């Protein structure tokens, strides 16, 4: 078997939400990602947010591209339909799904390779169209599934696992989303559950394109060449262990810090990132302000986290297209087909 089913028994005392669902109702299959992968923490936050919102799990459609991150929809909301599409094309598939049935909740999950390279165009266009969705990028700066190549969000000057220095400039998806007119833009860190859960919940509640960039450390491929702790090194030096064994014991990175402060986070490989949580008095309704704020702190080497921008009166694609309230996928011939009498008239006009 190449899948792992989760045991079905529940603890009778599990807490229930408004709909009477427990946490377990929001879970999916057991993750097959590396132990300690930031993506699993994001999965946990999605589960938590959906539980807290008392969402009916089956009313969510979870759509992804290809990559470790894009595998994660299998690990949450087991009772909802998932779609692991093709590399970088989650946004178009989600757009189509959303057009077909505006009544479901759409969760798009992608990676930085998926969204910032091959799917950069689709990312941009789904945002600019205002598709009603929560678009989460699980951003680890590398291609995880294909084993550690640079992604387009990797910082210039950073080093790959093989010791190669990245000479290309990084794409900041948050800055782009702001520029493209996204009506909900946030950044968070996979290990900061107290920040991420409410952000996801708010994004789901937002009508329009919500974008959350989540920094998510990759345990396997953000370590330097020559490191004696690297997976390759250990595998080469110890025949007895497999990949999972080696990585077991690596805890996911977690942080908890106050708004307005900077927290330096050490990743699995020892590299450090400076996260700045925005102040409580930051005004998230000012798009231009958000762009400036972001740029200012980026210049200081800080990654700003929090809800950067929201337009509470946003419209979505259905409003732009003036489509009917009834989901298009429920319409049948009686409402869709103009009928033979109209066709006779059309014929007459063509003679």
């Amino acid at each position: 078997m190449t899948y792992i089913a989760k045991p079905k028994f529940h603890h009778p005392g599990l807490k229930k939400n408004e709909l009477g669902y427990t946490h377990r109702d929001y879970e999916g299959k057991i993750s097959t990602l590396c132990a300690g992968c930031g993506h699993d923490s994001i999965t946990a936050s999605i589960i938590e947010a959906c539980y807290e919102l008392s969402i009916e799990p089956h009313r969510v459609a979870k759509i992804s591209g290809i990559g470790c991150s894009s595998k994660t929809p299998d690990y949450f909301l087991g009772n909802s339909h998932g779609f692991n599409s093709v590399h970088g094309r989650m946004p178009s598939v989600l757009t189509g799904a959303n057009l077909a049935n505006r009544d479901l909740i759409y969760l798009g999950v992608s990676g930085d390779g998926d969204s910032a390279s091959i799917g950069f165009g689709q990312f941009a266009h789904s945002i600019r169209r205002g598709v009603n969705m929560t678009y989460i990028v699980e951003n680890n700066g590398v291609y995880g599934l294909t084993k550690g190549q640079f992604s387009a969000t990797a910082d210039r000057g950073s080093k790959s696992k093989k010791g190669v220095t990245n000479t290309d400039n990084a794409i900041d998806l948050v800055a782009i989303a702001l520029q493209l007119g996204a009506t909900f833009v946030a950044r968070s860190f996979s290990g900061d559950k107290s920040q991420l859960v409410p952000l996801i919940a708010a994004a789901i509640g937002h009508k329009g394109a919500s974008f959350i960039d989540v920094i998510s450390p990759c345990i396997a491929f953000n370590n330097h060449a020559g490191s004696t702790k690297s997976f390759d090194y250990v595998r080469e030096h110890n025949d007895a262990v497999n990949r999972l064994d080696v990585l077991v014991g690596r805890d996911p990175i977690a942080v908890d810090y106050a708004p307005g402060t900077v927290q330096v986070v050490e990743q699995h490989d020892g590299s450090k990132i400076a996260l700045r949580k925005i102040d409580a008095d930051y005004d998230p309704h000012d798009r231009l302000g958000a762009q400036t704020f972001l740029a200012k702190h980026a210049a200081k080497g800080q990654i700003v986290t929090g809800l950067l921008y929201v337009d509470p009166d946003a419209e979505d694609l259905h409003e732009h297209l003036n489509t009917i309230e009834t989901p298009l996928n429920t319409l049948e011939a009686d409402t869709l087909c103009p009928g033979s009498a109209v066709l006779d008239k059309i014929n007459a006009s063509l003679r």
Partner: protein
Amino acid sequence: MSDKKPISSVNDFVVRFANVNGSGSASANEMFARAILRHGVPVSPRNIFPSNIQGLPTWYEVRVTEDGHLGARGGVDMMVAMNPQTWDKDVAGIEPGGYLFYDSTKPMPSTKFRDDITVIGVPLTAITNSTYTDPRQRQLFKNIIYLGALSALLDMDPKLIEQLIGEQYKSKEKLLSSNVHALHLGRDWALQNLKCPIGLRVKKSDKVGDRIFIEGNSAAALGAVYGGATVCAWYPITPSSSVAEAFTAHCQKYRHDPETGKAKYAIVQGEDELASIGIVIGASWNGARAFTATSGPGISLMTEFIGLSYFAEIPAVIMNIQRAGPSTGMPTRTQQCDIIACAYASHGDTKHVLLFPEDPAEAFEFAAAAFDLAERLQTTIFLMLDLDIGMNHRLCRPLKWDDARQYDRGKIMTAEMLEEGRDFGRYLDVDGDGIPYRTYPGTHPTKGSYFTRGTSRDRYARYSEEGTVYADNMQRLVRKFETAQDLVPRPLQANAERPTKYGVIYFGSTSPAMDEAIGLLETRGHQLDRLRIRAFPFHSSVASFLAEHDFVYVVEQNRDSQLRQLIVNENGIDPVRLVPIVHYDGSPITARYIAKAIGDHQDHLKVTPLRKAVS
């Protein structure tokens, strides 16, 4: 002075207009074709246009055909030479005994003419300049003036043209009267100064019947409306853009909720073809009928997603309006050159359903049927049009719709069925036809959800890389494709008057030329049974047809005889018995071409004693 007797023909000739793109001639030329139709005489017009917007040469050809031959004929009986750039080529293209109509405002040296044609000069520029001062008016009305002159030369009833002008400018009185005036300016000048009518004449007839005159792309778009498409995602590309544009226009007219005014459709101009097909797949996955329209380069880009549609079994409808490839090829010229690319689109082992309509009426029917097929088979269905049908007006039988018709939504497992405890395995072949059940997202709180993916999985949609599980799935897909054979439109066979060992296979827009070629071949003493293929996978009658004939010609409009390759590949037939007849210069294949190619081969085989060849 002509040294060849001028051609004399009533209701059977070809007029070609040579214009400069952007000169506004298109509507006057089309009106000429429509006016002949109003005389009850069938026409078959063709637009021959460059792949740029302004300045380059463009031609519009009208085949006037009492016998109703709708294929291109080849040759030009009358050239309306309005483009100095192409003058030499245009003059050279006139049949001996034919006519040259030109603007005689500026005198031309006699070397610019031919002795074996009749030259008709009308000082168009002089007439327009003396009547109009505005440059744009001068340009536009010049076209109507030559239309008027032609009406006199060809003995057409001016009332019928006035009627058409009246319909075109229904509520624009000023435009109406000024156009009618221009028409008579040209007509009167010709009547007063030229010997009217000439040898070519239009005489009232009753051969049009109740047939309609429509472009294939517009008919296909209407088919999508009638077939219940609610989502259309597309990216502009010639010659397919007019499908989406027509769908938009039809939807705006027929698809708004009368109470709220809201749209019962969603049309998105994608950022590219990848997004367009992605949107189609997402919408179809979620239970809406969705389609995209594109051409060759778009198909190339869509292939990864087409593979996903095949393997993950998601309905999709792609209308491919073929143009000459490879690469950008000749974007505004016609071909049937994406057969192989579509039949096996994407990596790995894939096979896709192709539909080949012959004319707009079938484009309408097949487009509507494509949505039923896509949902029934849960896969991509290609509607294979080409520029020749897609962007030209064709005379065809009226479009028909049965109001009792319901959409075939395929095998959908509903919440009630799940509640009953029906076993739901997304890729379970319950009925032995290879087609599994699917559920729409959001169907049931605890049952029927599954994970869609392009990776291998077992019958219950659980990810699996087991070789046997993968092979089991691939085998089922083969069964499904076999099921498709009996669902798609069957080939149509027409036998020769006498029994024959020779057959011909053809498809799509080749049809009218083929019908006419059969007549020409008969006069050369060649009898052939015909099989018009209307879909891939091939119905079993294709194999029977092949078995019943020693040689079968496969007529198609591409270099590599792609349909023939597909037949050889899928039917395991000895390729020697399939004789390729190909035409691929970007112009539509003609009856003359087919008859010559097949006739020469038949003569070579010495199957029948050579008779007096008439070509």
